[in-house]
């Protein structure tokens, strides 16, 4: 078969340029993170890692992620079920609305929450009367993280569920299955992988969100520093090795995310070739 660009010279040149650019733009930064983190030796690395403030930042990041991911998972499933299984006025509008967090700058996302829940905000002032503080505390970080990551699960599920159609679910209804049983026994097995992929993406973004969180966190060391904020603070303090130690944890998580994604795609491709 003859194809465009198959001449050996063209092929070698294009692959060569692609590999050099990939190494320079993607691989080099990745290597640099770990090289900088380990610059002072492995002992200093452990010492930085077990720093009180770094541990606190890891704890807060885990808390935020553990709250955000399940909430957005449940919301994503309900939204996908709603827009792919029913036709109702405003369906398109709803799908457009859910894309807003993708278009909004993270700083603007933080700003709108600050306006609402800050001391002078509509809700913030009222909650202040009950001694409930949302801004510059962990609930605010959780709220903006939910905002920033809410489209991921739904975005993975909607195209898939649209393509699959509702026939099997309808058959289950005529057989007398309840809604929960239909979801668990019919729908869930079909969307398992897309759901997992959505969760992986939500998780990666929730752990790493910086712009929105830095607006609402107020960066109180040991209290409202998530891991990305900790990276920033140590970097600004000229503690490069410390900053890259925290950064290396986040980079490790990014690598795990990429590996999980590749594994899911590989399985999907294999299933397709078997079918």
């Amino acid at each position, binding site marked *: 078969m003859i194809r465009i660009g198959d001449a050996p010279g063209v092929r070698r040149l294009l692959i060569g340029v692609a590999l050099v650019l990939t190494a320079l733009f993607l691989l080099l930064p990745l290597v640099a993170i770990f090289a900088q983190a380990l610059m002072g030796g492995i002992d200093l690395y452990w010492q930085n890692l077990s720093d009180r403030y770094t541990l606190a930042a890891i704890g807060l990041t885990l808390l935020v992620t553990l709250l955000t991911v399940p909430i957005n998972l449940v919301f994503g499933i309900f939204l996908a079920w709603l827009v792919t299984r029913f036709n109702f006025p405003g369906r398109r509008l709803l799908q457009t609305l859910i894309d807003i967090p993708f278009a909004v700058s993270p700083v603007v996302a933080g700003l709108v929450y600050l306006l609402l829940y800050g001391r002078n905000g509509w809700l913030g002032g009222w909650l202040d009367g009950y001694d409930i503080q949302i801004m510059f505390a962990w609930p605010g970080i959780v709220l903006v993280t939910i905002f920033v990551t809410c489209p991921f699960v739904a975005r993975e599920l909607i195209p898939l569920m649209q393509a699959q159609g509702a026939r099997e679910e309808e058959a289950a209804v005529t057989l007398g299955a309840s809604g929960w049983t239909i979801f668990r026994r019919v729908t869930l097995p079909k969307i398992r992988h897309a759901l997992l992929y959505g969760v992986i993406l939500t998780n990666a973004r929730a752990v790493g969100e910086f712009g929105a969180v830095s607006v609402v966190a107020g960066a109180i060391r040991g209290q409202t520093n998530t891991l990305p904020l900790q990276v920033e603070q140590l970097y600004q303090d000229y503690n490069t090795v410390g900053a890259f130690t925290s950064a290396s944890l986040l980079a490790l998580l*990014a690598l795990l995310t990429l590996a999980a994604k590749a594994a899911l795609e590989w399985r999907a491709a294999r299933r397709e070739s078997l079918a």
Partner: protein
Amino acid sequence: MIAATLRRRASRRVLPGFGLSLGVTLTFVSLILLLPLTSLVGQLSQLSLSQYWFLISDPRILASYRVTLLAAAVAALFNAAFGLLMAWVLVRYEFPGKRLVDALMDLPFALPTAVAGVTLATLYSSQGWVGRWLETLGLPIAYTWVGIALAMAFTSIPFVVRTVQPILEDLPSEVDEAAVTLGARDGHAFRRVILPHLWPALVTGTGLAFVRSLGEFGAVIFIAGGKPFETEITSLMIFVKLQEYDYAGATAVASIVLATSLALLLVINLWQGRFTRRLHGGGA
């Protein structure tokens, strides 16, 4: 009345869960998305038109629009070329390490932006691995708009690759064969035969990369250095105003950023919709 209409429609539905999923979704969308966004409108409505104009046309803010637009445009154009090359190489050729390169393309989405920011700033500073070398060539990157464009380009790499790749994969090989058999040279054949199939996806990907770059914050601020009138991006200006408790100023500038990115997203969606319909044979 609306509720009654909805209920009447719902009763004709076969599948269960309409009421529950509608309730959960609307509650979530109202509380998480709409309520915070209305607070922006609320804050804006307290400003008079002349006050608003004064806040958004401050010379330092105007300079930040210029830097942000310029850097984002350069980053998007870079990604159009780089993304097209990567998609082509990953779809058309076999080479060792291909799976690894393919997986690496998603790194900018998986890596937190702040981590990308400090890493690029360190690499391209005048003492960094790359920056030291570029400095001797008289090409300072850090603390210039080039550095800002570089950081924006990094965070938006996946957009073009991932929109062009599936289209290229689905392209039947007859398209190639016809051109090659007719004796067209590679470059000419690519422009005349392949590119017409790819360019809607290429434009979509580039547009998405541009929108993302306009709002980028974490990856940019470290390498930008924040010199007034020169390397301050608009999201940094909003952030600085918030730190100075200038909520009115921050909101006014944020409204410009928000309106721009929503308008661009709408245009991209319409563009994509038109293209998709044409693909499926409907419409004109």
